[in-house]
Every structure is written in structure tokens, then in C-alpha cells.
């Protein structure tokens, strides 16, 4: 898990030329300070006890950690592993295998990766010898020979667990769960996923061998805990080198969090999503404005960062279009209004544009067909319009049916801020019918 890390140098206002300090957002502080969240503490304890029993007493187990994206599942697992490995017995004995459903897309690749990470005897350097069938037989034989009291326990961590359930026959999952329920090498299988219906993906045999333990990380905290988290994340820890600077910084963070506008902005973010990943992104944007000349965060920074996060992506793209392309978009909008969302083609849009030119326009030039065609293609490249499926090759390009991927509100919002937009174009956009 990356630690958000900022390093900058500056001279302390007190001491002579002492070199700078770092501002770090501590993962550790975050993890144990998502407090008041009793669920997370329970989850920590449950997982820690489970892994400790596997590592020290050789008990085989399987568990799934389920939670929405950015809720802290991988972070929880890392913290628990770090605590577990502080015990010498666990550290010396536990073997770890980390797999990811996005990287190991196939059981064949997954097996090679497991064999490589366990460094079994059919690995030379980084190369695993043998075919898929041989690798599977070798691994199963190795696990079968072990037993609870004398073999080192193996921890399998499967990230994006739901993707493993899409492999053929779910062979890998069946075998891992089967080992965890047999008197063989002790294994602990930990799956991490964001799907709530992950058990429905498992085949009945695999599901029967899974122990149905699930740890749900649902962010059940309220806004006050959220604020508390922001404060803790931004504060410097006690063991910071420059105590004076740390105190100043922390008090500035305190005042920041008590500011009304900041609270409103954070409330807006909290309403949108409770996960920590988006919170980190917001705080990161704030921190990036901290500099030697401005060693504290002002409310305005947070409001700017909030605006950046919450702005509309497509509306921003519209600001980069030419006037012709913008007019084409407005023409499409009118077509959508009149024909209630039916797909259109270039010819129809061009006709609509020509109607505008005849009746209302003073400033726009009557472009030729190829120029308009080029503008249309540019819009397609930007994915602001999209062909209706299936009619790609057969029809001529001018008559290919398209759909607009923008909403009215996005167009109007873009128009407000479009630099030097001609008035007649704006009025055309705002009028009811073409």
C-alpha cells in the first residue's frame, strides 16, 4: 500500500539551517484510527486470530474479506500480517503466496506463480519447469506430503478472488480449499473481493469446501468519525523530528477542520462516497499546494481540491472543442429533444446546423461537407458520440447512425464556461426548438 509521501526542504524559522521535514500521511495511523468503527476492530481481531492459529498451531482455514472498493480490505490484511509477523514463531514458519486475479488470469499461470513463490524443487532461478499437468501434480503432491505438526504452514492471499472463480472448472480454488479441509500441509486461504455475491459464483463442490467465513468491511461510520479521520490523517505524528513545526502544523490542521466551508466540502465528499481512496485523493491534492513559502493548508486549498474532484469530466472536454464541433453538439442536442433520443447521422446533424445558419446565425461560416465530416469524426474519436452497434461496416459514414453520450446538463454547463462563445450560438443552445 503506498504511503502518501511528501518531502520538502526548508529552513526552520528557529534553529539555524536545519534541513527540512517530511509530511507523511501515515498508513498506520489511518488503519488503527478508523476507529469508532467497531466493525473494523472486530474484523482485525478475527483475521489476526485466524492467521495466528494457522501459523502457530497449524490449523487450516479459509476466509473471504468482502467490502466495497477503497474500504481498506488490502490495508487490513497488510496490517494484520505485519502484526502477525512480529511474533518470531510466525515469522520463521509462515510461507506466503500472493496471487492477484488480474495478473494470474488463468490457472496455468497461477500454478506457475504459486510454484515460483513457494520455491519448490522444480523451480530453477525464476523458471518453472514442467507442463500445466505436471505442475499441478507436483504442487498437490508437495502439499499432500506435509502434515499439521511438521510442515510449515502456507498462507495463500488471493486478491480479486471473484476473478479466480471464472477460471475453467475452478480447479485452483477447489484444490486450495480441498487442502484446507484435509489432513495435509496446513494452509490458510484468504480471498479479497468487492463483490457481495461472490459465494454465488462458486461451484457447489467448491462452496462446500469453503468454510463460509466472511469478514465484511462495510463503512458503517458517520460523518464525525470521517472528520476525525481527516484530522488524524493530516496531523503529523508525535515522533516527528521537528517538534515545533509539528505543533504548528497540527494546530493549523485543527483550525482547518473547524472551518465551516471546509466542513461543508467534506460533507459533500462524504455524501458522495465513504471510501478512503477518494478521501486520500482529495487530501493529496490539498497537500500538493503546500510549499516552503506556504507551510500550511488553507481552507481555500481544500475547496479548490474539492472542486477539482467533483467537476464533470466531459464538460471539461467540451471546452477544448472548436466552435464548429460545439455547434454540431448543440444540433445533436436539439435532434435528441425533437426525436426523443433516437439515433441520428451526420447528414441529419448537418441539416440541423444549416437551418441554424440560415435563420439565426450572424457569425458562423457555412462550412463545406468535408470539413463538417472531419469535425464529426473528431467528436467520434473523443467518444462524445458513439455508433449504434452493428452498423459499422455496411453503411457509408455520413449515414451511419450515432448516439450522443452527453447529457443536457453537461452541455449547458460547458457552454457557460466556454471561452469566447458567440452569443448567437449560446442563444441557439438555450432555445427550445432548434
Amino acid at each position, binding site marked *: 500500500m503506498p504511503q502518501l509521501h511528501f518531502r520538502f526542504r526548508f529552513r526552520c524559522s528557529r534553529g539555524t539551517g536545519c534541513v527540512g521535514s517530511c509530511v507523511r500521511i501515515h498508513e498506520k495511523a489511518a488503519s488503527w484510527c478508523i476507529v469508532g468503527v467497531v466493525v473494523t476492530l472486530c474484523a482485525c*481481531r478475527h483475521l489476526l*486470530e485466524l492467521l495466528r492459529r494457522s501459523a502457530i*498451531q497449524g*490449523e487450516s482455514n479459509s476466509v473471504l474479506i*468482502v467490502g*466495497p*472498493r477503497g474500504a481498506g480490505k488490502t490495508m487490513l490484511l497488510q496490517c494484520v500480517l505485519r502484526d502477525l509477523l512480529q511474533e518470531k*514463531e510466525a515469522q520463521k514458519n509462515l*510461507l506466503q503466496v500472493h496471487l492477484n486475479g488480474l495478473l494470474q488470469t488463468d490457472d496455468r499461470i497461477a500454478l506457475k506463480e504459486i510454484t515460483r513463490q*513457494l520455491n*519448490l*524443487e*522444480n523451480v*530453477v*532461478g525464476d523458471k518453472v*519447469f514442467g507442463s*500445466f*499437468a505436471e505442475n*499441478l501434480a*507436483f504442487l*498437490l503432491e*508437495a502439499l499432500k*506430503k*506435509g502434515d*499439521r*505438526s*511438521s510442515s*510449515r504452514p502456507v498462507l495463500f492471499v488471493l486478491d480479486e478472488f471473484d476473478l479466480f472463480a471464472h477460471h475453467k*472448472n475452478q*480447479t485452483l480454488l*477447489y484444490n486450495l480449499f480441498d487442502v484446507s*479441509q*484435509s*489432513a*495435509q500441509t496446513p494452509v490458510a486461504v484468504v480471498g479479497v473481493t*468487492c*463483490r*457481495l*455475491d461472490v459465494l454465488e459464483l462458486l461451484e457447489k*463442490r467448491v462452496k*462446500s469446501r469453503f*468454510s*463460509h467465513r*466472511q469478514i*465484511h468491511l*462495510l*463503512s*458503517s461510520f458517520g460523518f464525525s468519525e470521517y472528520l476525525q479521520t481527516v484530522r488524524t490523517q493530516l496531523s503529523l505524528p508525535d515522533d516527528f523530528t521537528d517538534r515545533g513545526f509539528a505543533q504548528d502544523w497540527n494546530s493549523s490542521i485543527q483550525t482547518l477542520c473547524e472551518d465551516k466551508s471546509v466542513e461543508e466540502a467534506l460533507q459533500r465528499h*462524504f455524501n*458522495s*462516497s*465513504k471510501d478512503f481512496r477518494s478521501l486520500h485523493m482529495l487530501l493529496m491534492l490539498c497537500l500538493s499546494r503546500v510549499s516552503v513559502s506556504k507551510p500550511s493548508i488553507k481552507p481555500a486549498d481544500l475547496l479548490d481540491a474539492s472542486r477539482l474532484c*467533483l467537476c*464533470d469530466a466531459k*464538460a471539461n472536454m467540451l471546452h477544448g472543442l472548436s466552435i464548429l464541433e460545439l455547434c454540431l453538439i448543440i444540433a445533436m442536442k436539439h435532434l435528441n429533444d425533437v426525436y426523443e433520443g433516437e439515433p441520428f447521422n451526420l447528414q441529419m446533424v448537418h441539416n440541423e446546423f444549416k437551418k441554424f445558419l440560415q435563420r439565426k446565425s450572424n457569425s458562423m461560416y457555412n462550412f463545406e461537407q468535408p470539413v463538417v465530416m472531419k469535425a464529426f469524426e473528431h467528436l467520434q474519436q473523443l467518444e462524445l458520440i*458513439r455508433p449504434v452497434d452493428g452498423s459499422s461496416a455496411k453503411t457509408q459514414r455520413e449515414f451511419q447512425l450515432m*448516439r450522443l453520450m*452527453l*447529457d443536457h446538463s*453537461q452541455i449547458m454547463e460547458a457552454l457557460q464556461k466556454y471561452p469566447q462563445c458567440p452569443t448567437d450560438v449560446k442563444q441557439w443552445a438555450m432555445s427550445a426548438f432548434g
Partner: protein
Amino acid sequence: MIDSVCSLCVSSLVISVEGLPRPTIIIPEQHILIEGDDEDNPYVAKVIRLFGDGEFGEQMKAVVQWFVRVSEVPLSKLKLLGREPHPQEIFHYQGRICDDEVNVESILRPVQVTVACVHPKVLGHKMCTNITTDVKSIKFKNIDSWMSGHHLLTMLLLFQQIMPGTPRTPHQATPSIPCRSLPTRQPANILEEARARLHVSSVPESLPCREQEFQDIYSFVESKIIDGTGGCMYISGVPGTGKTATVHEVMRCLQHAADVDEIPTFHFIEINGMKMTDPHQAYVQILQNLTGQKATPDHAAALLDKRFNNPAPRKQTTVLLVDELDLLWTRKQNVMYNLFDWPTQRHARLVVLTIANTMDLPERIMINRVASRLGLTRMSFQPYSFKQLQQIIMSRLNKVKAFEEDALQLVSRKVAALSGDARRCLDICRRATEICEHSTTNPSATGLVGMSHVMEALNEMFSSAYITAIKCASMQEQLFLRAVIAEFRRLGLEEATFQQVFVQHQALCRLEGLQPISVSEGLAVCQRLGACRLLLLEPSRLGVLQRVRLNVSQDDVLYALKAD
């Protein structure tokens, strides 16, 4: 080790060797020992010629012909030799890898190499010698005191090029997981003991509640072994009903009976359809278990065919257990056909026990000739009833008093009502003991596992988290769900596009007094709900045009949202 190099001329080299009083002379055509990685087994070579290298001829080198010891030759090549090599045997090396020139400093001492008597042999090249007792007499013969301390080696003969230059594939790779440094701790208190016994892997010697099935399978297999005939049996049952465990128990008892000579000896093989990457690997695994041979699937099939179709004297009955039979299905069904056809041959003496989950598997997926060879010897394992589950847990605990009576009954009833799966039951009981252990404020007072602990375990392991997830979702996500339901009601359909739902969403925002959100934000909210599978979405490249469906029932959503 060479202490000093006295002089060099082209024809000979004088070295003084540690431990020998007088200097030794090395001449061409003499065999020498050269320093290598292994101190006990230095390399053997024969000097071809000596020369001086470098600007002034100061660096003395020797061109040598290398030999290899038996220990350096890979096993597969040794097998080519066709006989057991003598431990002190060396072979002429004709590979191109090693440098033929060595510095004289690496010469240890001269050595004597003798050719034992000669015997024409297979390798197609020159003669291989056959080692006879002559070697022993040569080897240990006392040598001249002048040459005491020299080793004696027998030289044998030529041989094809040995190792190629690529990294050697591990031929002797043994599958194993490293061992622990300290043995595991024993269970410290009653709850830990109970937990160890309730683990699914601690299968008892005799399975309770499966006595009748045990008897049936036992008598079937025993009769086949005693008669020396073959047969097929099909065992079916939902997962967790003890099929594989019962068959293992039967085979253990039969093995015991064979050990005390009550019945003829037999050979037990087990294969599992899920532990194979391809149905045809079944042949490979059966062959390997039977004879230890490794072969490709087609070759293995041919070998097995030959073995089961031809009579052989003193042949043992083979009992083959095929787990997860439905995975051995192929389009032509030839793997299953062979597995069921071989027992029908007179000389095969093969008994096949197959296990699968569905009772009507033969009728559903097998073609007629395969199903008829499978026969009608079928056995179906019923899911456990609650009394049986209770009995299973009690017999596992076996006088370890860790559970209250009604707690056990609750678990058994609940699991029996749902699936009758013994694994589920055992896992829930184990979780209940964990909860009990960690809930007591005073760790030394280990009370029994009570109803409350069991209820908590049941809730954890049987619940679906949708309602909690909706309750814990953010405000905008909840509004979006409301908007989805509103749009479905308006359209009268179970599906809507994001654009339509978004309109409703904006309206709801205004109602709640919240600031309206942008389209991008709305799309992000929608994506998050789709990732959790509270909503079912089309691919996100469709943007605002993607269609949205609910994965939870509308009533559940409204219930979850109302409870605030």
C-alpha cells in the same frame, strides 16, 4: 595443493605435492586430479600436453582430456549404460563446454587410472568394460610406497556427449514443503481441543451414521476381490455427505484384512477429476500409480489397454476410485468408456468405484454404451438429517464437554434444514467455539459454548450482507438506489438507462435539499454500486447510455433504506 612450481619445460612439469617428500613429475599422457568445487571429489583429467602461455611463457598451462565421475552424470544418462556403475568409475567426457586448458596451479596430484576388463556392450560406440571382481582386487591392491597416497580408479569407456550447456532441468525434483523449526503447540484448553476435533480434516476412524453404506460398499468390493473379477459401482450424493470418507474407510478395512491374509492382496488407486487439468490425464495418473511409469496420455491409454486386456499370472486385483466423475466427460466420452469397459474384460480384475454429485448423471450425460457398462450398481448418499448431524458432532467431541445441548441441536437443525452438509455444520461449531473463547472477559473461565455464541456464528455464516451494505452506503448511493426504483416504477420495467435514472436522481437531490451532482459523479456512484453487485450494469464504455438493473429485490432495498 602445489607448494611450488619448480621448473617448466615442454615435456614435463615438476610439482611438489603436499604430504609427499619428493617432488612429483607430471608428464603428458598422465592422469591427474584437478581442484574442483568438491574437495572430496576433485576432477579427473588426462594431460595431453603442457605449454607456457602469456608474453614470456610464464603462465604454465596444460591441455587436458576431461573425465567425469559417476556422481556427476545425470541419472537418465546412467540408465543408458544399462548396468550398475561402480562408484569409482570414470567416463571419458567429450562435451564442448569445458575449457580444455587449465592452469597448472589447479593440479592436485597425479592419479592412477586402470582399465578393467573389456566387454562389448550396447552404446554403439566402443566397448564398455564390465566390472568384475578384478576391480576390487585392483582397487585395494597395495601400491608401491613411492606412490602411496595415490588413488586408484578404473577407467571405463566412451559415451555420448553428456550434458548440454543449458541449465539442467531438475530431474530429481522431489515435491515437498519445508519443515517447521519447532513442532506445533498442543491444544491448551477444552475449547482448543474441541476446535481441533471439529476441524473437517480430523476424520474419525469410523464414520457414524454411514454404517449401512459402509457395509454395502465393503461387501461389494470384498466379493470382487475374493472372486478375482471386476466391476463398477456408482456412488452419488450432494457435497458433504461423506462419500469419499466412507470409501476410504472401506479401503482401510480391506487393506487391514489383506494384511492379515483374510483376503487376497489388492492394489488401491485413487484419482480425482478436479485434480487433473484434462480428462485424458486420467490415463497418465492411473499408469503412474500402477507401474510408476510416466507417459503421454495416448501412450498411457495404450499401455493400460494392453495391461487390462491380456491375462497375466499372479495378477492382483486393482481397486480404482474415481472422484468427481463428471469432470472426466469429453465429447466422445472415451475416457469414461474405457474406465467402465476395462472391468468387463475377463483378465482385468479391475474394480471401479465412481463418485459424483447427481443421481441421474449416467442418464443425463452418458451415451448408452457407456451408461450400460457402468451398470446398475448404484448407491445414493442422502443428506444428513438433524439427528445424524448431532450424532456426528457428539462422536467427534467424544466426551470433551464443550457445548451446551440446545446449542448443538440448534446448529444441527439449522444446517439440516438448509443442505444437510456435514462440513458446514462442523465449521459453524468451530466458529462458535472461537466466538466463545474471545467473548469471555476472563480468559481462564472457559464456559461452555452457549446459544448466544452459536446464534452469532449462524448469523455470520448464513447471512447475506446486502441489507447491511445498503445501510452503510453513502447518501448519494442510497439516493441513486431510490432513483432506480422510482424510474422502474415510472417505466413499469425492470431496466432503465443511466440517463433516465439520473433525471430521477437530480429530482431526489432537490427534494432532500442537497446540491445536485454532476454527471461524472453520478457515473462514479453508479460504478461503485455495480462493483458491489447491488446493481447490475452494462459495460462502462457505454457511459450515460448504460442500462441498469437491480440485483436485490425492491422490497429489500426499501426496507434497508427505511430503517434509518
